[in-house]
């Protein structure tokens, strides 16, 4: 083979290498077939390009590693944020957060404002009482009804015939038919006083090594997206007025991982191409 030919072949190989990188990056950016993407942020010093670190730094600990090798970060303040970048309005997300909690309640919030006046939509994330509740439970369309003694077989049946002579508690749920509804937090001793508890809170899944996993499905169509970034927060009401006395260890909230599955719609050109085949008789 002539040296000039060898040189030409190598040139083609090098240019093809860069063209392949460019194609790969374009494919990843545009995701024309709408293939779900998976991201896993394990709270190690390694940067994740989609899930950004917890902020502000004063309200989170350094990265720690437990005896089993799991990385985690402890939350120290009432509000701790993280953001996802880049996102667009037509995406859907599944988030799975692995954590441990020694506080009674954690809320998950979706930030809906920019600037100093913080506004967020709260969702139930962790509630120690409900998490440990072993009452019979029925579920319909993401609404859970806990009954001290089982009378109702479905949520609809309960809402159609609410026992107003009993103590009905609600937690992140509102319905006019429950006229004597009291917020779950109003009860001094909920386990004894409450007869029915209705909520949208879904119990976290416990792993054998003591962590809890809460999964959430988020639709970004109504989210507040600023510069391709959407912000979420963990709200821990317990830390709002908490001052640790000397020698006392503050209750710990540790987050070990955030896993995200991103569902993007396929490109409209791909859909058109698909429809060409679908419409054929």
């Amino acid at each position, binding site marked *: *083979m002539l*040296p000039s030919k060898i040189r030409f072949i190598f040139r083609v190989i*090098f*240019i093809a290498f860069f063209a392949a*990188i460019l194609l790969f990056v374009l494919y*990843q*950016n545009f995701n024309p077939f709408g293939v779900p993407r998976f991201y896993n942020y394990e709270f190690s010093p390694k940067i994740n*390009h989609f899930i950004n670190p917890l902020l502000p730094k004063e309200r989170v600990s350094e990265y720690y590693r437990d005896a089993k090798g799991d990385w985690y970060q402890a939350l120290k303040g009432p509000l701790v944020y993280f953001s996802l970048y880049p996102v667009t309005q037509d995406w859907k997300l599944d988030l799975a957060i692995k954590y441990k909690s020694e506080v009674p309640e954690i809320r998950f919030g979706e930030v809906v404002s920019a600037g100093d006046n913080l506004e967020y939509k709260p969702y139930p994330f962790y509630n120690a009482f409900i998490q440990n509740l072993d009452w019979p439970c029925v579920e319909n369309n993401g609404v859970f009804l806990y009954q001290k003694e089982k009378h109702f077989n479905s949520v609809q049946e309960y809402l159609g015939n609410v026992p107003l002579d009993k103590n009905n508690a609600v937690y992140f749920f509102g319905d006019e038919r429950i006229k004597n509804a009291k917020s779950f937090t109003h009860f001094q001793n909920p386990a004894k006083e409450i007869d029915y508890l209705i909520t949208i809170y879904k119990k976290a899944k416990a792993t054998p090594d003591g962590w809890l996993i809460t999964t959430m499905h988020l639709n970004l169509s109504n989210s507040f997206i600023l510069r391709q970034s959407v912000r979420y927060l963990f709200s821990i009401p317990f830390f709002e007025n908490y001052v640790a006395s000397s020698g006392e260890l503050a209750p710990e909230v540790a987050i070990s991982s955030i896993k995200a599955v991103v569902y993007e719609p396929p490109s409209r050109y791909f859909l058109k191409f698909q429809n060409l085949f679908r419409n054929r008789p």
Partner: protein
Amino acid sequence: MKLEARKVKFPTIRLWRTGGWVKLFYVIVSDLFVISLVGYLIFLWLDRAYNQCISNYFSLNIILVLVLLSGIMTAVLRGILAKK
């Protein structure tokens, strides 16, 4: 005619004997240096202009290493050829 055909058929042996491999290697490495440098600059510009569209999925440091290695090798080979 037969002899000429042979010369064309086995130039690699002649290349080896005359020490042309160093020259060929130098030419290939210098090509790699130029192509990777141009590629790196284009990717860097794209990355800055379009919200880190490259570095979100592919580390630009890999290309930077390629540019540096091929650049160093080009300089070394050039030195070797100049001595010869």
